[in-house]
């Protein structure tokens, strides 16, 4: 607090304050992203919890929970590995952005986004091979819904990454100006984690 403000002793006068001013703390976007991640985490947890509860109820010897479906795990494992690598490249881009290295930032983000598209390609291929038919059974409906939710979060994550990449292309790089990109990378971490949880519950434990 400045000396002038501390030394002044006077009766407070309501109405003198016309205004509040701009925020001094620069992490609003990061904190807001954190809250969005919290909401998304609970949405995924709620859906997975529901899935597991139904599986628990129907988990008896005479019931075919998977309804004869076979899961192409190799492709899904490769898809997950691709996502995990994209997390590394996203953090690389953010790291470079903090140091003002624009070239590395853009290359890192480009690779991240390409890997994101590659992931979707692999997952769509796997789901097509599985020939999951909506409405054919409870597992199909639940698996489709949970998988769809996770994929939707990944799409939001890619959109967010793309948007913040455009922003960094516009010059928002450097130690004090990388927070937006960092927020998008933070969300991407969550989206990948959400997919990993979905993959483990639905396609590994089944």
């Amino acid at each position: 607090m400045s000396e002038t403000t501390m030394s002044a002793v006077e009766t407070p006068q309501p109405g003198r304050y016309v205004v509040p001013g701009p925020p001094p703390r620069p992490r609003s976007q990061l904190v807001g992203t954190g809250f969005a991640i919290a909401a998304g985490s609970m949405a995924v947890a709620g859906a997975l919890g529901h899935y597991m509860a139904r599986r628990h109820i129907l988990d008896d010897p005479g019931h075919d929970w998977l309804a004869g479906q076979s899961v192409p795990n190799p492709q899904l494992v490769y898809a997950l590995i691709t996502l995990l690598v994209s997390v590394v490249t996203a953090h690389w881009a953010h790291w470079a952005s903090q140091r003002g290295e624009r070239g590395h930032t853009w290359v890192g983000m480009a690779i991240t986004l390409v890997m994101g598209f590659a992931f979707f390609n692999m997952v769509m291929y796997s789901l097509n091979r599985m020939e999951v038919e909506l409405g054919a059974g409870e597992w199909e409906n639940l698996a489709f819904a949970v998988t769809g939710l996770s994929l939707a979060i990944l799409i939001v994550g890619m959109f967010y990454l793309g948007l913040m990449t455009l922003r960094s292309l516009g010059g928002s790089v450097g130690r004090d100006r990388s927070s937006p990109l960092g927020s998008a990378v933070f969300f991407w971490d969550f989206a990948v984690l959400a997919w990993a949880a979905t993959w483990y519950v639905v396609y590994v434990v089944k």
Partner: protein
Amino acid sequence: MTDATTEAAHSTGSAVAPQAEDPTAFGLLNTADHKRIGRLFIGFSLLFAVAGAVTDALVRFDLASDSGHTVLNLETFTQVFMFTRDALVFGMLIPFFLGVAIYIVPLQVGAPNVAFARAAALSFWGWLVSFGVLVGAYIGNGGPAGGWDAGVRLHMLALAGLVMSLIIGAICVAVTTLTMRAPGMYMDRTPPFAWSALVTASMLVVSLGVVLGQLVLLYIDHSYGRHFLDGNYGIWPRIDWMYRTPQLFIYVVPVLGVAAEIVLAAARRWVFEPLALYFTMGLVGLFGFGAWANFGIAGEGADIVDGLEGIVLVGLYAGALAGVAGLLALLGFTVWQSRNRPRPHPGAVSWKRPNTAVLAAFGAGKFIAVAALVGLIGAGVDWLNIAGRGVDGNAPLRFTTWVTGQQSLLIYGAGLMGALAALHWWAPKIWGRRLSEFVGWASFAAIGGGAVLAWLGPTLSGAFTEQPQFVYNDPLLTTVYDGLIDHSAAEGLSVVGGVGVIIVLVGVGLVLLNLLVSVGMGKGAEADADPWGGLTPEWLLDSPPALGQSASLPQLSSGTPLLDAELNGSVVPAEREPSEVPA
């Protein structure tokens, strides 16, 4: 404002350009001013409170005969029952306090606007449109148990829209409190209402997020085969945790913040241990969390928890009660400590001459405490099978209208009473005029008295006649009294509850009339900046503050600058140049 521009403004010492606001009504459509967004939320949520109370009265009077439906029929009873919960919780309770928070919190923490102001506007319009779609779904025989398939799914989409909109608004409020406080105002000096808004916003984000995941599953299964939904009736039991305790405690935490603001201003003293104030409010929100597991505990996962659900619920209610009782004790002790303190000016509030805001704050706090106590008693009875509850075919209290009584306590008692307190307290700051005290006292009496009746009727009926709250797989059983112990008692007590709701409705009508006359027609006395002798920073601003945001910075070293100045002779400076803000 972006981080980059904020930092640039700080580094160069340049002021941020004021944001242009169209002062006409058309400007409401594209406004990004937290004051207008807050007013819109407040106004519409009060209208939806009327809709919810009207339909609640219909439901209760429909239960007033053992021969079946007296007002509605089976189909409409189910729809109206569910719409009532939607309207009271997602139409009134959450959005009202979200609106107050969007308006007041930035002023309290010294921020120029709410964080992500465009997102806050999106929150309001998304909420309004979603609520309209929800009403349309019900009208078209949709809703969770409707006969129109597309309408059922439309309801789910509308509910998802409501939840997402409110989550977005909650994030804006939480981020404002966390990241946009004026220099020098640390978290442990935050005004009580801003803190309560942060608690509720955080808990809304993590609790309502669950329902989004659930709705995805429900939507898909309803659209394709309905393998686990059991027709339409599987939807409501999976989402009704949002309308029941302990989740309702999360929604009313801002009421505790409002009560603390008003009580401390009347006492003209800060609590002796501020961390206890923040901790107790946080406790209430924290123990409201976990309601989403209700169906898993009581239904699909019952054998997993294997009887532990009773102790879990007892623990949740005990924690909430401890939080509320602790806060009220803290505030009560502060009032006792300051019993002889003079008022700073004749218009300031005090315990010796309580106004509507003080009375309503006192009443709302008590309603929350009673609700927690009632919840604890109910959970304890169910857990220990007292009076044979939950065994030998007797319904546990949580399946009876005991639950309706709890809802009445928290929605009408705490929620509407807290809304009354907030409106009377902050009307000068929101609209620049005071509300009529005479009409305010009448509203207080009507809402308080009505809420007591609306609580007692169903609570006693649930306890002594086992009147079912809502039978998910066959709503007809909700209204048929064949299995009940005493038909006449159930009928009469339903009427008592219905009369209580009607009286509450009169109270809400008086509130709206007061707003119309005092604010809309300009009959209320014009308010100066600090008409009540408030303690918190918003009372340093004009009433109401001008639209848009300005460039100068406040310097606040606590959440109670006016009290600090009064007690210590120190002063909070009027303005500080942006260049003085530490990097």
